[in-house]
């Protein structure tokens, strides 16, 4: 039995989405719809009911920030914001789409998807504790991984990795010592 996804199927899926959404990016086999935060819940309901994306995969956020305490900053300066991404999929055909929206860094808030996809409950709790994003109308917006008294939002780019501050990570050596290249960019 050959189960390979038919290429034309995914193309017709993209076409049907393009007729509805204007801001679609299809890069590296990853389809992404950019929408306004005000359309968040209604878009999700529409994708679930009309486009057959009944399978909830995940929800998370990205902290876009120019001044970072860990890692490298973005290549080109960005306007600081949170990007919230929700991944939905068809359960049989396997077509997948990422839905993305931008929210402000000041008092970030967005509507909860729990009434549409029950599975978003824990994912939103994770985004809440890791980024400090508020999900309106969430039934139980509490920390999920971190202990109760924990302060701060660890996944923010401004959040330092303390152990790394005390002692630089020894793995840096691997990158610095590469032969021939003489590349020093690993020192971040």
């Amino acid at each position, binding site marked *: 039995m050959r189960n390979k*996804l038919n290429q034309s199927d995914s193309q017709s899926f993209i076409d049907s989405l393009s007729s509805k959404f204007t801001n679609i990016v299809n890069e*590296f086999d990853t389809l992404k719809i950019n929408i306004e935060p005000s359309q968040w819940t209604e878009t999700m309901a529409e994708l679930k009911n009309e486009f057959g994306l009944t399978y*909830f995969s995940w929800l998370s956020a*990205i902290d876009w920030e120019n001044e970072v305490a860990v890692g490298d900053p973005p*290549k080109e300066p960005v306007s600081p914001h949170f990007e919230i991404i929700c991944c939905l999929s068809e359960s049989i055909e396997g077509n997948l789409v*990422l839905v993305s929206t931008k929210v402000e860094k000041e008092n970030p808030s967005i509507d909860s998807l729990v009434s549409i*996809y029950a599975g978003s409950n824990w994912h939103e709790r994770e985004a809440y504790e890791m980024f400090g994003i508020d999900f309106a109308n969430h039934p139980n917006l509490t920390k999920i991984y971190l202990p109760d008294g924990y302060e701060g939002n660890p*996944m923010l780019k401004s959040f330092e990795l303390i152990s790394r501050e005390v002692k630089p990570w020894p793995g840096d050596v691997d990158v610095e010592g590469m032969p021939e290249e003489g590349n020093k*960019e690993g020192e971040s």
Partner: protein
Amino acid sequence: MDTTINPNNMPHISEASVSVEIETEDMTLNIGPQHPSTHGVLRLVAKVDGEKISSVEPVLGYMHRGYEKLAEVRTYPQITTLVNRIDWVSGFANEIPFIAATEKLMEIDVPERAQHIRLILTEMARIASHFVFNGAYALEIGALTPIFLAMEDRERVLDLIESVTGGRFHPNFNRIGGVKPAAGAGPTTKKDIQDLPAGFYEETKIVMEKVLEGVDRFENLVGGNEVFRVRTKNVGIITKEMAEDYGVSGPILRASGVKFDLRSHTDFLPYDKFDFEIPVGENGDCYDRWYVRLVEMRESAKIILQAIDSMPSGPLQTKVPKVIKVPKGQSYVRTENPKGEMGFHVISEGGLGPYRLKIRTPSFSNISILPELLEGQLLPDLIAIMGSLDFVLGDVDR
């Protein structure tokens, strides 16, 4: 003296009503974090009314290691060692989606031989993981013998993985652009690099025969057991809608009747070259979840035997720069991990490491269904239901 009591002579007793509703207070029962049936350190706070569960609140985070944050300060080749440790029962299968997402961003084509080796080892990891489930689940239901048989069977598969990669649990065998030369391949020179150890094909064929025997044995020993059937049939039913709503994936979703297997939707592993069935359940109960995994092991063995017979020759590695820089872009790649959908969303800003790495693990979504699923169930069924979800805490907490 006649001491027998005849109720008919005691009208005050025979007339007494026995249908008294006794008001009982809910008791809070704390299960875990150190409990064998939780597969690690999951804590459940259950409110029980007698034997009936009124609500369950899972408490997570005892195993949280912050891999998403760590990935932001690591380079791409270094992250492979991290992702190995997410679901340690099937370490090899975790590497694939991350490596594939990175390769997509770098637009690298992996040599066919490397793809085949990846596929074979992924399926071996699936067999090893399902053996652990089979043994542990029977143990939780109350049968002690299967765990010993399962561990023995699984060890043979792990030995094969070890002979190629050098590691039983954490192979760290994938490289961006291919796989590394095998551990048991003997001395390697730059001109002549061997990948698979001598005798690997023959050994694999022998082990796969043993795996198939083992699966048959489990079907009789566990599946034919009356106690096991009664404890698992029609217990913990997950409907199709509920499963999709919660993002439940893998064998659990298929046991609920949804024929959704990401192996049929991958373009970076050559699954389309092989014939295999995707087993689907009907009722979505514990028994179906157990049975789907059992049949999957047979299919995995079938895939491995086919892949061995059609192993292409050629290089193991594509040429990649010595310092791996990934161009700016975003890519989400998911694969069928033994537990379900495992995916990595790599957001690259052109640096040596990702700007952000979102790790989607199957067990996290799979157990998020627990509060709804366990409500109204009996306490002894809690163990049967939790066990049938086959989660690993490293996979839940990351």
